[in-house]
């Protein structure tokens, strides 16, 4: 009785951690600029394909590809931010949605063109495969690794935001952008850096996700919905909120698929709509 329940909780938590890595960057950038970036998961997908390409074609080891996935996604997002996004910071939600949905369409088609629509395989090192048993519960090693990685990332992010000068600027800009500008903080530059870092994290998440959820060109759409749920339920610009929402979503998704498979994803959409109706600004959102 307890075994399956604990297993579901653990799997759900690991899945939630993956969603957290994928979505935390979007949460912070949305909180800062109110820029609705639906292309966030395209950066994650880019990271995933970078990982696959480096491992398959160039024979890199799994761990060496992860920083490359981070850098590739960060670089691509920085270029796009300079070229396209920054012109639309003051535009309507609709225009931002449309521009970024256009980018998602392009990235999906481009991925299908280059790699085909098949699932991409990835060979993680042998010590990350298999599972360990503890108190009669099976823990998949890769999921343990994922949870560990997510916790480290969370701690680093919180420490960076709370203790560094740059983190203080970002927090100021999230709280009140106009006031931050008035105090002489270069919000545009801070935003550009945060945007690149957030997309880089998404790229890293994309690389980490392949072993668990696979990678095909539909990734940018499928996980977009999950990421948006995490961000909107957690509240914009709140790392703690994203963490809580990702955990909640991961566990309810895995539990729903385990205990009531005939309902499919019905449950999580219901939870999302209900939560948003209760608190439109998200669980931890201020606005």
């Amino acid at each position, binding site marked *: 009785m307890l075994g399956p329940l604990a297993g579901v909780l653990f799997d759900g938590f690991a899945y939630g951690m993956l969603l957290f890595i994928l979505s935390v960057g979007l949460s912070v950038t949305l909180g800062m600029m109110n820029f609705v970036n639906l292309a966030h998961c395209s950066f994650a997908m880019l990271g995933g394909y970078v990982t696959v390409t480096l491992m398959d074609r160039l024979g890199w080891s799994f761990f060496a590809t992860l920083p490359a996935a981070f850098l590739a996604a960060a670089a691509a997002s920085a270029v796009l931010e300079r070229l396209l996004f920054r012109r639309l910071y003051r535009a309507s939600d609709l225009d931002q949605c449309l*521009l970024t*949905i*256009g980018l998602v369409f*392009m990235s999906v*088609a481009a991925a299908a063109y280059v790699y085909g629509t098949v699932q991409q395989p990835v060979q993680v090192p042998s010590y990350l495969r298999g599972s360990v048993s503890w108190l009669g519960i099976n823990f998949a090693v890769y999921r343990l690794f994922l949870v560990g990685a997510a916790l480290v990332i969370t701690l680093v992010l919180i420490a960076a935001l709370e203790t560094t000068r740059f983190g203080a600027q970002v927090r100021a800009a999230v709280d009140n952008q106009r006031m931050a500008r008035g105090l002489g903080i270069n919000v545009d530059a801070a935003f550009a850096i945060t945007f690149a870092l957030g997309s880089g994290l998404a790229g890293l998440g994309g690389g980490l996700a392949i072993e668990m959820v696979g990678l095909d060109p539909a990734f940018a759409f499928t996980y977009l919905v999950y990421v948006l749920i995490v961000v909107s339920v957690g509240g914009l610009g709140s790392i703690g909120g994203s963490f809580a929402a990702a955990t909640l979503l991961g566990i309810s998704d895995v539990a729903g698929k385990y205990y009531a498979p005939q309902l499919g994803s019905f449950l999580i959409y219901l939870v999302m*709509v209900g939560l*948003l109706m209760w608190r439109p600004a998200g669980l931890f959102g201020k606005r």
Partner: protein
Amino acid sequence: MAATARAADAHRQFELQARWRPAEIAFWLAALLPFVVTPSYLSLASQIAITALFALSLDLILGYAGIVSLGHAAFFGLGAYAAGIVSKYGWGEPLSGLAIAASLAGLLGYITSFIIARFRHLALIMITLGLGLLLHEAANSASWLTGGADGLQGVRIRPLLETFRFDLYGRTAYAYSLLVLFVTFLVTRRIIHSPFGLALRGIRENPVRMPAIGAPSGSHIRKIYTIAAAMAGVAGALLTQTTSTVSLEVLSFQRSADVLVILILGGAGRLYGGILGAIIYLVARDQFSGVNPQFWYFWIGLLLVAVVMFLPNGILGGLGAIYKKFK
């Protein structure tokens, strides 16, 4: 005295706006051309008319009232399934099927409009998206009613008015879709050239100020959302009746996104934007899909980016700007 003069002025302005322009009459006459010029493309023409109707319904809420919806396919799909399911159980008469679909979609629209009217910005986008996904999942799970992922089996549509059969060439289908589109268009045109339509544009421009000058934005939004939902239901029912098939795809996010793209491409908030967008989009898809179906969405994406960056009001807005320059 002055008040009545102002009222007369306002009345006259509405009349001026609502006058039929020669270009409009020419456009609707041209819509009859496919019957003689391209008879082999009548099925495509009927698809265009249906999509145009769907885009027109989105235009009412997005273009006029400023409600961004990523889940408008919910009403389209509900209408499509309603028309399909009643025909499966022996009620294959098309016109009453349309009415049933419209009332069901309108009812769902009315219920959800209470939610829609309360939210804005990201929460609104996410709620419309969530409601659309919910209905998609519900239809997927309720396979005893909808056929699930295999699509609805056994749709039997009776001939239109018991006389005109839906043939393989799409003659009846196009005539029927075009007629329904035209009638709905007249209703839409009447709505937006009324004081109610003006109030909607006011809500789009400034949702805080409208209640302050005495126009209750909540009840206006509920009304227009219900109307738009019923129209989308009619479009869905038309698709079922002219093709005799219903698949889960009618409720998909892809369909919601497509209709948004079509409307923006043509130009939101300008009546003909959705229709023009549907023509361009579906004709282009028909021409290019044979070449490379996977790559089709790349060009759609590029087009979207270009429209947002360079043509903020869509193709019609761009044409209007050019026209003004040379006038």
